[in-house]
């Protein structure tokens, strides 16, 4: 990981990633990761969450520093608006994941990117979370992502990169597919 990033296509260290992929193919147990976040209620609907430690490659790992995020709700929800809503954070996660995917797939296909912008939109009927109609689900009705990409590639190639990025995206999978969730209270 010591190579000079300015020389890398799209600033993406393809060689290191391919090397890691190769290593994990012979030692799949190293591929088991555990991601973590810790949260603290502040006031009203305001919560502060911290992200730092995670587990991967067979041992405990750490980010370079701790990252702190606030979530809250806007004033029309009679809240203080100390941060984005949790559902907007989900969109932030999706944007980050799909865009990282676009960069890695493009680099793997030796395509130079000039700009990658995405606009995300999720429709939600809040009758669900308000408990007004039990037929309405709490979460998103649908999620739309629109990419604007400038790159040295044909429209068809760009479309293929975006499709492949969805195929390999963790957050896309988390949103599109069900996951078992266990919430417990420590005694």
């Amino acid at each position: 990981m010591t190579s000079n990033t300015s020389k890398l296509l799209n600033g993406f260290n393809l060689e290191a990633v391919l090397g890691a992929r190769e290593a994990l193919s012979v030692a799949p147990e190293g591929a088991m990761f555990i991601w973590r976040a810790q949260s603290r209620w502040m006031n009203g609907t305001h919560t502060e969450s911290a992200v730092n430690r995670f587990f991967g490659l067979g041992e405990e790992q750490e980010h370079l520093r701790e990252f702190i995020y606030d979530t809250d709700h806007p004033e029309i929800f009679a809240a203080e608006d100390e941060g984005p809503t949790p559902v907007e954070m989900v969109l932030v996660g999706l944007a980050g994941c799909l865009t990282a995917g676009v960069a890695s797939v493009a680099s793997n296909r030796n395509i130079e990117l000039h700009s990658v912008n995405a606009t995300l939109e999720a429709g939600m009927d809040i009758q669900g979370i308000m408990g007004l109609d039990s037929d309405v689900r709490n979460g998103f009705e649908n999620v739309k992502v629109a990419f604007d990409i400038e790159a040295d590639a044909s429209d068809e190639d760009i479309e293929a990169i975006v499709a492949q990025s969805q195929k390999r995206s963790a957050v896309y999978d988390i949103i599109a597919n069900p996951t078992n969730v266990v919430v417990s209270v420590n005694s």
Partner: protein
Amino acid sequence: MTPFIPRASSSRVCDDVIVIGAGHAGLATSYLLTEAGLSHVVLERGETANAWKTERWDSLRLLTPSWLTRLPGARYLDEADDGFMHVSELADFLDDYAKAFRLPVVSGANVTSLRRRRGIFEAHTESAVWQARTVVLASGAFNNPAVPKIAEQMPDNLMQMTPFDYRSPDSVATDGVLIVGASATGLQLADELVNAGRKVTLAVGEHVRMPRRYRGEDIFYWLHRSGIHDQRYDELDDIERGRNLPSPQLMGRRSPDLDLNDLQNRGVQLTGKLLGCREGRLLFSGGLRNVCALADLKMARLLKQIDPIADAEGAVQSAAPVATRLENTPPVSLDINDSSIDTVIWATGFKPDYSWLHIPVLNHKGLLRHDGGIVVCPGLYALGLPLLRRRKSSFIFGIEDDARDIVSHLTSFLKTDSRRFADDLYSDAHTRASARRRA
């Protein structure tokens, strides 16, 4: 060619080669072993072409055109070159092939254990132990349906079937059917069941889309002419992905194309990949649009690869197939009681059965560890697996080139191994003689 080998008392025969399985791969191998003058036996659990006779549904035709049904030394002669053989015609063809060349097939010889002791392979059947210095596994890649773990989550009142249980629409007792899987099998069953008036829901994961005909010819003509079928396993970037590709959405009929657009027009409801069942609701992926987009993109790429060859041959132009049409919001969950789904058919692929293979050559996924059919155990070989040595490896016409490569490797293995065997005997005798002299 048969060297001296000490025999166990129950052993019947000692050969150069044991071939396991008398399907197209085993028979082609046997033909080439005969040509090479190697003594061998073909052990078959049932009879020749067993799976084709007993494990396929009634209407099934090969998805390759008849003119491509070739084995070393033989080809299927069909007046209508662009026809598609019924499975029973293929079974007859393989029977005739085995008889015409007097191939040494032993029927009813189900191998319950294959071991290797002191460099000799031992294949145990119920009535005998067969020994040989090499073995070719030609037992097929589709021995068992690969049913995903989520099958366990299905409620008891839902009937569950695999393609092995399916013979015709009469095999499905209920009106509403969920077919899981959008490969050749899933789409062919959906096609037949919707024709029979059933209410069909099709859960679609990643799939491979191909038009039956393109630029005036069958797609297999172009896959053949363009050299795509001859692409070697060691030239591909990601061999594992290639080997795991689902079979293309094709069937043995000229038209209409077997595709998701046609099935939807005829009333088939599409959903994303089936992910499980919770609290009486079937859960589907919201990623249907992307798997269809990926399949359309890959098909476009394939056709683009074919175009220059078609142009060079002066082939007629043809329009690219239209993109897969999807309704705006395919369901991501369905209530089992409201949805009229009473039966689930797992068209989720097949897997080989190696439960009898008592040699440590499988990976953590239960698949053979091999390099182009040369298994990681000296003298052990495999044939007839997807993309074994070439893209065409799992097709009937694809077996000859692979089998020639393997038989040639096997022949030189036997030669060097014999020499090593003789050297060992000599050095043993030499050591014993020196020991005696010292004593």
